[in-house]
């Protein structure tokens, strides 16, 4: 049939037609505009609205930004300069406050000659978390990760150089006992003994030991009081410290919540739900007002540490939920395979379950960290100098800068935005990478 059909065709073109350029209205910028901005009456309306919004914003704020003054030492001077330059009634940003007080926004009242210490701590943070977060960082660096917290505390607060070493030694002691005894006594007994020895060491040995060593061979850094902390130094210390310390607690709580033991499960659920059910601000008030009631009479320690404890509890509850999500996302087969290999609970968790569950949870942990970092601004309500309200209020108390609102808001907001935006992009990239791995 098809043959007869073919024969009946009188003429078949056997060469290609030369390509024609697309019609003028359907190519290039015009076509792009038509497709993306003016494809219908609704879209056109939206575009016009968008342009109007941008126009209003730019017209309002552009002159203010363009008239910015950097070289002024008080808000009055700023206004004089702006009036001289741009005429009566002109408004402008007074960035002089940032130039004069940037160090307070970043470091609070930390002694200026010691700024290298927080900066070094911040840079070393990337070395410490690098092996966890980036695949291209050499794995060898992972030994630095457990050392970092002790080093960071010492660098920030200063004091005797023996303190971090001896406290680290306590953890090493506990871990060593665990490793040596676990083949003979089983992991539970070994863990109990190791923990007991470590606790006894911390309670009775470590204090005199540090004093003794310091008397024999004194070395260390100039100590800095907690009251000197402020600005982003405080925010980052609380955020990073809270997340780091809450990770172990969060893992324990998550495992507790998944546990078969009803009592352990109940305690974990109560803790997690209680902490997640109340605002962080009430927990901070517990830190500032109630902690003295809960501790033995006469105990008094500094407010940053107290806030850090409550922030850790707060973060731990959220981290526990994130990790629980990771545990739940693992296929059932992984648990069954671990059982089939004859691994006991802790070995199964350590070798099979947790490495996978934690890897899945990293994006969630990063976003918990972003939330934590933003929430650290609430410490202003217990009298600490956060970068958002505490420090600007302090600066505004100076007569020279009375009534300056927008410049500190923009400066601090921009730093928060840059840090958090970078972290959220990273966590999205990580999510994509993990997704590809799983399929």
């Amino acid at each position, binding site marked *: 049939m098809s043959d007869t059909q073919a024969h009946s065709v009188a003429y078949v073109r056997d060469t290609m037609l030369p390509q024609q350029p697309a019609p003028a209205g359907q190519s290039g910028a015009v076509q792009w505009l038509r*497709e*993306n*901005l003016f*494809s219908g009456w609704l*879209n056109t309306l*939206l*575009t016009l*609205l*968008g*342009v109007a*919004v*941008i126009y209003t914003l730019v017209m309002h704020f552009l002159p203010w930004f363009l008239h910015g003054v950097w070289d002024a030492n008080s808000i009055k001077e700023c206004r004089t300069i702006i009036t001289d330059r741009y005429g009566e009634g002109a408004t402008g940003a007074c960035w002089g406050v940032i130039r004069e007080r940037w160090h307070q926004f970043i470091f609070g009242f930390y002694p200026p000659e010691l700024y290298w210490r927080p900066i070094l701590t911040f840079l070393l943070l990337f070395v410490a978390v690098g092996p966890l977060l980036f695949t291209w960082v050499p794995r060898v660096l992972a030994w630095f990760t457990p050392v970092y917290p002790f080093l960071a505390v010492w660098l920030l607060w200063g004091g005797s150089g023996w303190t971090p070493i001896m406290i680290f030694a306590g953890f090493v002691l506990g871990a060593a006992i665990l490793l040596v005894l676990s083949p003979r006594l*089983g992991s*539970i*007994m070994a863990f109990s003994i190791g923990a007991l020895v470590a606790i006894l060491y911390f309670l009775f040995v470590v204090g005199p030991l540090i004093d003794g060593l310091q008397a024999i061979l004194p070395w260390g850094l100039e100590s800095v009081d907690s009251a000197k902390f402020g600005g982003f130094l405080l925010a980052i210390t609380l955020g990073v410290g809270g997340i780091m310390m809450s990770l172990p607690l969060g893992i324990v709580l998550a495992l507790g919540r998944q546990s*078969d*033991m*009803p*009592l*352990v499960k109940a*305690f974990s659920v109560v803790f997690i*739900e*209680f902490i*997640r*059910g*109340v*605002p*962080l*601000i*009430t927990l901070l*008030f*517990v830190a500032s*007002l*109630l902690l*003295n*009631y*809960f*501790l*033995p*009479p006469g105990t008094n320690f500094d407010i940053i540490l107290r806030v850090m404890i409550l922030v850790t509890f707060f973060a731990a509850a959220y981290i526990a939920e994130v990790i629980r999500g990771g545990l739940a996302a693992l296929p059932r087969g992984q648990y069954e395979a671990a059982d089939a290999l004859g691994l006991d609970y802790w070995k199964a968790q350590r070798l099979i379950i947790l490495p996978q569950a934690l890897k899945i949870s990293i994006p969630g942990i990063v976003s918990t960290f*972003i939330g934590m970092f*933003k*929430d650290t*601004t*609430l410490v*202003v*309500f217990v009298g600490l100098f956060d970068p*958002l*309200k505490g420090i600007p209020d302090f600066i505004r108390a100076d007569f020279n800068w009375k009534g300056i*609102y*927008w410049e500190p*808001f923009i400066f*601090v*907001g921009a730093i*928060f*935005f840059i840090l*958090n*935006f970078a972290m*959220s992009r990273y966590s999205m990239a990580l999510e994509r990478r993990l997704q590809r791995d799983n399929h």
Partner: protein
Amino acid sequence: MTSAPDAPEQGFRLSQLIYDTRYRSLTIQAIVFILVMGGAAWLVDNVIQNLNDLGKDFNFSFLGQRAGYDIGNAIIPYNNDMSHGRALLVGLINTLWVSFLGCVAATIIGVVVGVLRLSKNWLVARLMTVYVEVFRNIPVLLWILVAIALLTDVAPSPNAYKVNQQTGEAQASMLLDSVAFTNRYTAIPSVHFDRSLGSLDTALAPISLNFLALVIVLIASIWVNKRMLTHAAKVQEATGVRPTMWWKSALILVAPVVILAFALGINPEEPQIKGFNFTGGTNVSNSFVALWLGLSLYTAAFIAEIVRAGILAISKGQTEAAFALGLRANRTMSLVILPQALRVIIPPLISQYLNLTKNSSLAIAVGYLELRGTLGGITLNQTGRELEAITLMMLIYLAISLSISGVMNVYNNRVKLKER
């Protein structure tokens, strides 16, 4: 004579408590229980000792004492002769009120932004992305502070709305002739009834019978409408033809309320500038507006992301399959896309509501007296009962959170995919 050997005597050794999986979990639980209870006992003991040292006791009788402070934004009747307990109640209602209005506004803005972010319009999609990223990555405290600074610094004084006799113009003009932002309060219209049915006095607050009547009529018409729809479904199943319903539904839902409102003589009362202040409408304090704006704009950014994710989560195949079955676009949306998207959207949405409610405690930054400001602020400072006040405050927040998540669980169970 041989007899079967006795089973080996199963003596119980102490080591079995650790090495035998039958007993191990009991041992661990016993140890955990002892540790937790020991810790709790230690804390309670410390508290008792500390209270003794300070000469304080633990009781809530301060809630019955005279409060002696004023609350600017009381929704229920309150004056400073009333008790701390009443002040607590005022604070709690303020918390719930600002949270409720915040959730409503955040949902509306969030849904609009989330949908627009998926729009094909390049410019609008980019603008919405900028909105979401800027608001998500900066602490909510900043947005509340920006809102209050805008209202107190930039907004004109009520005086500026006064018409100048010579020029016949005012320095500032009201939004849509009914909303005026000033540096002390925001004047908005209020609802006024020409014919009042009186009010019902309850212990909590007097309730206007007009509002009550409107609400009752509305609920009744929704119920009747539901019955009618059930009936229509029955008719459709029996005969295959669905009776035309839309105009009946519209009539039953709208007509009774409109008629009643008309009978009661409902009309908006616009704020008018009289002397130095606005009278007529309602003057809402700036602290409330700032808190509400900050919370809603911040939470809306998160809700926008949730809505966007929910819509993207429904694969295109679902729409195509619905079209292939011959469903029209609106039926596809209501029967296929929305039920699936809502299953994805609702749980994180509710946890955002929860966050907003908890964040309302930031009212402390602008001086709006809600639960944290009354019970956890002035009452605490006046009576010096930190332990009782903070415990009570945490328990109340916990109760609010748990009831919201309880609602979420009920919903989750209802929409859960029924696996067979």
